[in-house]
């Protein structure tokens, strides 16, 4: 085939494709509409995104200024980094809920105000409103007081000696420093270390086999972080340990706020059952 024919064909193709089609105006309108839609979506994205970013930045700044940022970071780190403790807790028969679930949970509110000081010295008084309630059902500690009475937590005796222990009124108002702690150092750790204190107390409670040391550790945590993330759990676990040690009156005093629902229903029925059993 000669080149001329190919050129003729090319010319034919050129001529056939020349000229503005009738739909040219429609194409123009579609293009402008498409660009307009694209701009509108971009503006909407900015209108939503910028306020959200501002709220986030403002919240973070406020948290930093008020000192809560460290605690929030601490809680998040605890959730992320403590799966093994969650496993421990899952197997434990007694109270406190696992670490990870607790740290980010929000308290069901607050029909329960801050528990008041009971007239009885043995009653539990707490310094602040229950910060968090995680209503979880768990079997109560099966056998209270199968252990001889141990030394009071707040006594000066370093070890719990059952024979020495009078049933002294137990002040579980945790502002009083506990006796010298073999296992928990008495210092004022920074905020992030309070979580470590709780973890230590928890380990002593479930793995340590030393209820007295565990109580002292809980006391330490509650003294340094009365409104801490796990303060409620610490109080409940402490009450169980008192029960285990045979400190019935102290245990009942410690369990009463829970039974009365002052912690938003957390362990309420369990606490009541334990009080009924201990009162017999």
């Amino acid at each position, binding site marked *: *085939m000669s*080149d001329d*024919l*190919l*050129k*003729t*064909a*090319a*010319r*034919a*193709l*050129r*001529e*056939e*494709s*020349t000229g*503005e*089609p009738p*739909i*040219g105006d429609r*194409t*123009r309108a*579609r*293009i*402008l509409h*498409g*660009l*307009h839609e694209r*701009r509108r979506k971009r503006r909407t994205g900015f209108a939503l995104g910028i306020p959200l970013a501002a709220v986030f930045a403002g919240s973070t700044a406020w948290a930093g200024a008020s000192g809560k940022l460290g605690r929030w970071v601490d809680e998040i780190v605890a959730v992320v980094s403590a799966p093994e403790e969650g496993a421990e807790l899952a197997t434990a028969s007694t109270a406190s809920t696992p670490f990870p679930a607790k740290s980010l949970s929000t308290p069901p509110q607050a029909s329960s105000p801050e528990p008041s000081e009971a007239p009885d010295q043995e009653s539990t008084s707490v310094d602040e409103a229950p910060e968090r309630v995680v209503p979880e059902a768990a079997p109560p500690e099966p056998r209270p007081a199968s252990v001889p009475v141990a030394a009071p937590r707040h006594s000066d005796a370093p070890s719990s000696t059952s024979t020495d222990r009078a049933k002294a009124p137990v002040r579980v108002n945790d502002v009083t420093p506990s006796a010298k702690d073999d296992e928990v150092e008495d210092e004022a750790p920074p905020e992030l270390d309070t979580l470590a204190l709780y973890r230590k107390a928890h380990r002593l409670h479930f793995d340590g086999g030393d209820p007295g040391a565990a109580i002292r550790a809980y006391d330490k945590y509650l003294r340094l972080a009365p409104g801490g993330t796990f303060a409620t759990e610490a109080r409940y676990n402490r009450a169980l340990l008192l029960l285990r040690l045979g400190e019935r009156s102290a245990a009942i005093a410690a369990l009463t706020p829970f039974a009365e629902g002052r912690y938003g229903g957390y362990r309420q029925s369990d606490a009541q059952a334990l009080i009924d059993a201990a009162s017999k």
Partner: protein
Amino acid sequence: MSLRVPLPVTGTRAALDEEQLLVERLQAGEASAIADAYDAFSGPVRAFAKRLVGDDAAAEDLVQEVFLALPRAVRRFRGDSRLRTFVISVAVNHAKHFVRGAARRRAAVDRMAEEPLESIAPRASACPEHHAERRQLASVLTRALDDLPLDQRVAFVLCEVEERTAREAATIVGSPEATMRTRVFHAKRKLREALAREGVR
């Protein structure tokens, strides 16, 4: 075929300034600039799209896509060519799936055709018949173009159908001039063979 490479045609100073202003407006994201660009360049872009794609509807879609993509694409315009050339290059970059789609449709139509294409040869005749023959020849060539690789197809359409210089075509495509000539050479060879198979003498 030897491709003569004339010097690129430059516009007047006023036209260049006007084009530069349009570029700046496009790069600034002015909505009216796109409308002005469409009014200025849709004709050449549409013509190129039709010749390249061979399908009016697909060509119109390609035109739409080119001007929708132009606000972003114009950011990389460096002024080393005319804006019209740049817009055609955007069309080349976006043409791939339109060409393939149109070729597939034509292939499907051909499979359903009851009669093979008849041999056509342009001859001097009365106008309507001449137009019909021209259309038929254009259609045959479009089908033959479907068998070419895209780069050869683009090269043939730019250089042979639109009669652009190899330099301009190379600028549009972003390839060296020698490469463009090579592609045109191979495209023409294959098209001759294809047209011969179709019975065009």
